[in-house]
């Protein structure tokens, strides 16, 4: 359940960003989460509700956009969509894909009142 500590981190960042901006309430937080990032979305939203209680982000909506995973083959230079870290390259069959997208754990924006 690292989702719990990730939510603590989200709240920390949101509080930091709210400071000096006369924010009454954080209404929504928009995240981008890579498909390869080790996140259980239901665990994340559940943890978020717990951690947000009593903070400026209590009751805020956590909106998650999935970022598809992409890899670049070291061998033949192709750029392919992947499902797992250990997928072989669809062109050459080698296990030589470097993950270049899909690890994201990012807060994009927040909507406040």
């Amino acid at each position, binding site marked *: *359940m*690292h989702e*719990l*500590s*990730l939510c*603590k*981190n*989200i709240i*920390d*960042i*949101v*509080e*930091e*960003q*709210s*400071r*000096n*901006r*006369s*924010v*009454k309430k954080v*209404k929504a937080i928009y*995240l981008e989460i890579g498909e*390869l990032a*080790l996140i259980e979305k239901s665990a994340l939203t559940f943890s978020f509700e717990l951690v947000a209680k009593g903070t*400026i982000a209590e009751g805020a909506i956590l909106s998650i956009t999935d970022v598809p995973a992409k890899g670049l083959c070291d061998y033949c230079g192709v750029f392919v969509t992947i499902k*797992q*870290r*250990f997928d*072989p390259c669809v062109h050459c069959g080698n*296990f*030589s894909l470097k993950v270049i997208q899909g690890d994201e*754990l*990012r*807060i*994009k*924006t*927040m*909507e*406040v*009142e």
Partner: protein
Amino acid sequence: MCGICGCNDQESALHDHGKESLDHKHSHAHSHDSHEENRLFLIEQDILSKNNKFAEDNRRYFSGQKILALNLLSSPGSGKTTLLEKTIPALKNQFNIAVIEGDQQTDCDAERIKATGVPVVQINTGKGCHLDAHQVGHATQKLTVEDKTILFIENVGNLVCPSLFDLGESQKIVILSVTEGVDKPLKYPDMFYVANLMIINKIDLLEYVDFNVEKCIEYAHRINPDLQVITLSATKNKGLENWYEWLMNEHKKLFSVHHHSTAF
């Protein structure tokens, strides 16, 4: 005040550094009319950025003190503590050694390390399933680690969560035992992706279990072609010399960097 992160917390590292001025904001709130529109702020920040900042602080401290910090990762029971119980007596005449023990509840492992006579600090993570960089920074302060030390950080036994959290270590070492099955790297690819060294432990049991070492290494290399591998048995003293040699090499590298930077 702690020298690494500059905060005042000596006991628990679970506090956060961002809450201090939170209360001010409400006193400044002025009345708004009900039609006020919501505002959208661009944040563009990595969720792990706080941890990563603490990890950078640790890394700077470790490299300044010439501390070789090694993050030991595995599922429960792979033999991390046993390996340390073997390693410490074998090397403590040549190196300063210190240990940070991460466990959810108990301090049994810390007691086992204490018996070897080197400094050890226990971090209880409670419900937390991994160590974070802030906890490690504080634990390091308590250790008053001497210069030129090998610092072993035994992470919580869990192959998922700890892979996300940089502690500022020099190397991540994933320990797998032959009773766990060859497909561990494929099931927990992230851990093997971030690791620098894989130790396959309990090779004394190879004759009793269906575990193909070559195949396991091949799986791990699919995920991480640069992963180094050492096979050993911590209890039956097989292959330990390769592990000691690896440690000595890593330690030496730290010093050669030092010599370079002072020569110019």
